[in-house]
Structure formats: C-alpha cells, structure tokens
C-alpha cells in the first residue's frame, strides 16, 4: 500500500463504496504479497501446517462439543468415548430450562454491546488525541492510560462496589456497564496504529484544510480499519466473558450475564453434570465466532478499499 495510493483514495471521496465481488477479490489478491509466488512445496507445507494446527487447537474444542451431546453417564468413562453414543440433546434442553438461559443471553448482548461501543468510541478518540494532537503532558497522560492495565480487577471491585451501590446502581445495567467503560487497552492499540500512518498523508490532508474531526473520519480511520476490527473483536470477547464485576453487581436474571448464569448449572456441593455446562459453553461461544467470521472479512475489505487504486 504505497503512499500515493492512499492519498488517491482520500482525495476521491466520491469513491463508490460497493464494488463487484470480482474486483474485490482481485484487490484482495493484490495486498497479499506472499501469495503469488509460492511453489508447490511451500503450499503443501502450508496445508500440513494447517492440519497440525487444527488437530492441536480443535481437539479440546471437539471434546467440549461432543461432551455437550453425551448422556450424563457417558462423560466419565474409560476408555474415553470419542463420539457420543447415543447422542442426546438433553443437555441443551436442560440448559435452556433449568436456568433462564435466554434472559442471560439478552443481558449479555445488552451489556457487551453497550460496553464495547463505549470502549471503541472512547478508545479511538483518546488514541487520536494522544497521537495526532499536540498538547503538553501528552506522554504522561499516555502512561497514565496504559498503567491502568496493570491494576488487577481483584483489587478494584470492592471499592467500586461501594461507590456504585451508593449511587443506587446495584443490579442495573448502568451499574455494570459504566465502571467497565474506561479503555486502556484500546487506546494503546489505536494510538500505536495512528502513529504508524504515513505522515505526509496527514500533513497533506491538513494542508487541504481538513479539520481535526474530518481528518479522523476521512483520513485516519479509513487507513486503520484492520486494527480497529481487531480492537473491536477483542473488546467484544473480553466484555462477553467478563465475570467478576457482573457477578458482584447483579442480583438475578434481570441483569446477570451469561458467564454468571452458567455457573448456576454447577452443583457447588455435590456432583455436577457437565453436559449442560459444556452445552452452555458452546452456545455462549457461537455468536462471537459468527461475529469473527463476519469481521475478518471486513478486515480484508477495509484494506481492499485502500489498495484498489494502485
């Protein structure tokens, strides 16, 4: 992606956003430099590598999946049962009937989307200020932001609980969301990204009279799409799996999230039936995986937009 390419894209604001599939694919091909000259040996090695990866990473996943379809008595057997026989959907039935599963899903969706949106917006704005605006004490502010990553939440929750409870926000969505909304990780990531952008382009846009917000939306963001997607994805995952704070703040299924709700499938003094727990793990993971599939395409598409004019 050469400098002139990107400038071309920026200047041409009337660029039609939709292109044909083929153009897009060709464009995608262009930005993948290492793909056009691989010999058959390399390709074969690549496939071997992929198979290995799938074996190592996917076997535990596979195990979670088949356990979710096993009868209670078939989970702990020797030798291990590599295929559920008989396969049963009882665990999924139990999962959705024994706990208010869909209430937890709803709460998780609300809390995750609100927190993720807040973090993404705040992260981008903070990163922009910390990378492309000049003001005194900039590096100190930056250090303050990333040092927040070093504070484990075990030590913040008690104090925050007191504060939020005094505001009367216990067992409310805002009580869960607002304390989680400050963003250190994303500020760090996006600042890193913004600083890596070619200076001439920024300068050129400024000379063209682009105001700071226009610069952000029209110049900086379009060039930072893959990183923003990665940031969003990781933020969504983290919020989706957040446990400690939602468990302390929520009282029941009006606000409790999925990771909190799923723990009520376990028997805390006796024998747990792991089938429904595994079923819950699978169902909790699916929406995020779908989002990943969707977003990783966006990651490539975003680049394509910049590269196609070369």
């Amino acid at each position, binding site marked *: 992606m*050469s400098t002139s390419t990107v400038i071309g894209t920026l200047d041409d604001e009337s660029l039609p956003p939709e292109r044909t599939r083929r153009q897009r694919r060709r464009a995608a091909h262009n*930005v993948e430099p*290492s793909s056009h000259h691989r010999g058959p040996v390399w*390709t074969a090695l*690549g496939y071997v590598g*992929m198979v290995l*990866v*799938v074996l190592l990473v996917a076997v*535990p996943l596979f*195990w979670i999946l088949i356990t979710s379809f096993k009868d209670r008595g078939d989970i*702990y057997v020797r030798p*291990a049962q590599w295929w559920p026989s008989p396969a049963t959907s009882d665990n999924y039935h139990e999962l959705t009937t024994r706990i208010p599963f869909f209430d937890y899903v709803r709460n998780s969706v609300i809390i995750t989307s609100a927190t993720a949106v807040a973090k993404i917006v705040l*992260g981008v*704005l903070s990163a922009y*200020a*910390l*990378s492309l*605006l*000049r*003001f*005194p004490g900039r*590096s100190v502010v930056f250090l303050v*932001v*990333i*040092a927040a990553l070093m*504070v484990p939440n*075990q030590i*913040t*929750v*008690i*104090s925050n609980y007191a504060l939020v409870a005094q505001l009367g926000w216990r067992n409310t969505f805002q009580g869960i969301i607002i*304390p*989680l909304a*400050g*963003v250190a990780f994303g500020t*760090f*990531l996006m*600042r*890193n*990204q913004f*600083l*890596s*952008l070619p*200076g001439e382009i*920024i*300068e050129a846009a400024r000379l063209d009279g682009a105001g*700071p917000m226009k610069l952000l939306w029209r110049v900086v963001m379009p060039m930072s799409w*893959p*990183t923003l997607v990665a940031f969003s994805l990781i933020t969504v995952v983290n919020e989706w*799996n957040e*446990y400690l704070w939602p468990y302390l703040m929520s009282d029941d299924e009006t606000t409790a999230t999925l*990771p909190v709700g799923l723990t009520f499938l376990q028997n805390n003094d006796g024998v747990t039936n*792991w089938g429904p*727990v*595994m079923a819950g793990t699978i169902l*909790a993971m699916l929406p*995020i*995986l779908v989002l*990943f599939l969707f977003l990783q395409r966006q990651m*490539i598409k975003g680049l394509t937009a910049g590269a196609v004019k070369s």
Partner: protein
Amino acid sequence: MQSSVTDSRRDTPVSAGPPEQVGPAPRRSSGKAWEWTLAALLLLPNLVLLVVFTYRPLLDNIRLSFTDWNISSPVANPVGLANYVEWFGRDDTRVVVRNTLVFTVATVGISMALGLGLALLLDQKLKGRNLVRSVVFAPFVISGAAVGIAFQFVFDPQFGLVRDLLARVGASSPDFYQQPGWALFMVTVTYIWKNLGYTFVIYLAALQGRRADLDEAAEIDGASAWTRFRRVLMPQLRPTTFFLSITVLLSSVQVFDIINVMTRGGPQGNGTATLVYQVYQETFVNQRAGYGATVATIMFVILLAVTVVQVRFMDRGQKS
C-alpha cells in the same frame, strides 16, 4: 503498522531503498490552544472513567497496604511497612514469584511465537484458511472459567484425552493435578491454548496492513525468504511485537480464572499460585486484605517497572 509508541518519527529499517519517513511530521510548536482544548475534550470521558474506577481503587489499595485491614472489618490499623517486610521475608513469596515468572515467560514467549507463525501461515492463500482462522480464534472466545472446566477433560489423570492418547502408545499419564511441576505445566498449556487467538489476530491485522512493495523489492533484489523475514517483515512488525509483548505480559501476570478453576493455586498449597492468585487468596480466603493490598501494590510496581524497561528497550532498538 509501523512506528513506535514512544516516538512519532522513525526510519523504516529496510534494506532495499533509502530510509523513508513515516509517521506524522513533527510540528514546531507543542500545539495551539484549540488543539489543547480538543485533546482535553476527547480524553476527558475516558480519563474520568479510569480515574474513578481504576485509580481511585488503586490509591485506596496502596493506602490499605500499610494497614492490617481484615476484609470484613470496618477499621484498618496502620502498621507501617510491616506487610512489605513480611512479604520479602516469607518462604511462599519465593514460590509465588517463581511460578509467576515461569508462567509469564512461557506464555508470553510461546503464545507470541505461535501467534506470529499462525498469522503468517494463515495469511497465505490456502484453501480453507477462513475455517482454520476461526478454529485458532475460537478458544479465545471462551471464558477462562469455561476453558478451565473443559481442560479437565484433557488433563484428568483417569479420563483425560492426554491419558487416552498416552495409553494408546503404552505410556502412563503424569498426575497433572497432584505434582506441582506438572500442574504448572498444565495451566501454562491451557492458558496458551486459550490466548493464542489473541496474538494471532493482532499479528494477522498487522500483516494485512503491511507494505507489499517492500517485500517485493527485497525479493527482486534476490533476498532469501529468511532474510526477507528478518530484514523486511520483522522490522515492519516491530510496533506490533512491542505492543503484544506488553499486553500479553500484563494479561498473563493477571491470570486468575483458569488457575482458580483448575487447581485453586495448588497442589501443595501454592504449586500454581501466581501473584494475582496470592492477592485473591490473602484478601478473600485468609481475610488479610491489608497484606493482599501489599502484594497487589508490589505487583503493580513490578509491572510498571517492566513496562518502562520495555518502552526504553524499544526506544533503543529504534535508534540503532
């Protein structure tokens, strides 16, 4: 992604072609009034949230680290440096610090190397790579507690997959839960498995944003694949590597759910206890919240120091 967090100017260390200036051009002044105002407006909401919900508790914590606060008590008596003196003198401190070091070094090193390898592999035009990308990312999507539960089916000395596979070749399985060394190995492997998706996705995003022309130029110059990797690709990925080395380190040190679910810090009391686990254990189990606050403060100071060193190191790498 090319540039650093510490300096907005840098040269692109490329063997072919003259150094090219990237990053925003330096301005003469340190900004104008409108720039200050705008920066303040953009930063304020985030800073307020961080100050109220992270730094206020942190300050509380530092203050409490000089007291004998019992978690359930309404009062905390000042004890000066007693907690700190105790921490440095205690036998279990050594074990916990060693566990934290082993765990962190292993997880940071291995998950970054594997993440980069996988990102490179799955950046190739191979059939089915979208599926494989999802597979690699999938473990990251599962919560730490759920991963800990699921991996009991991998490492269980009676029913686990490892046992099953070893039995097929006639070997017997170590007792991962009872022997401290194996237990630490177990939680480390589990953590790497879960977090590979993170390093992978960040590296993948960086690879997608890299400059094809540099690689092509080098190739035309006849550079070998290894040379291109080392001289062209790695320097371009440097800011990403730097970013990951900090964030993976910080999240590894703060691992809690996996350890809590799999071993509760055991076997033998602290076989897999790390600093954060010790904070939890002292604060909520032993009820010595003052001492727990001390451990947390020490950990914060260590992390801050390590991060500053990382930033410096990065800086120096930049200049050479």
